């Protein structure tokens, strides 16, 4: 499947990019995060990372579709 991954804040710094296109057998955001963490050396535990799919918050085990855009969101610190 083809996915677009979005990284923010420290994950963006660690990945060295804000966005990447991947081709993957993974069918859920949790698996995609595990792959990305191994590839980029993310040290943030997956349970701290919220997930959004196509611009809306989503569960880590939601079933993805080809072409989905998946965002990985570290703990927020606005305000």
């Amino acid at each position: 499947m083809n996915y677009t991954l979005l990284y923010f804040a420290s994950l963006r710094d660690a990945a060295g990019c804000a966005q990447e296109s991947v081709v993957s057998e993974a069918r859920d955001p949790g698996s995609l995060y595990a792959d990305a963490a191994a590839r980029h050396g993310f040290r943030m535990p997956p349970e701290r990372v919220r997930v959004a799919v196509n611009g809306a918050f989503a569960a880590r085990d939601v079933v993805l579709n080809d072409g989905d855009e998946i965002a990985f969101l570290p703990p927020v610190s606005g305000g």
Partner: protein
Amino acid sequence: MKTFSLSESAIDAASLGRELEREHVGAVVTFEGRVRDHNEGRAVRGLAYEAYAELAEAEGARILGEARTRFEIARALCVHRVGELALGELAVWVGVSAAHRDAAFAACRYIIDEVKSRVPIWKHERYVGGKAEWLHPWNP
């Protein structure tokens, strides 16, 4: 006018305040969050906010809607800065108008608390001495 918005330029608190003014309104409570020159004992030189803009605006609007449902308020607005900010600059502004002060205080507090804990915005602090860091509170 959007109830929640992100701003790349300085927040104009005075004009936001005027938006809230109505004759039937008895109470207006505002909250301003400003860039502090210290955070957890470290001297701050400046900071930047990054947002996942699409989702931040949707989640912010959802929070403002929740405030209108939970509290008897007339209007509520929130603006959050993104990009580079100098010390002392306004980072976030919340304003609520209501007939009575109980609702105005409670809603203003609700909005800033929820915005801080739910809206995908991240603070990047630069410290005196050269270090810099993303703030990712794991126990918000």
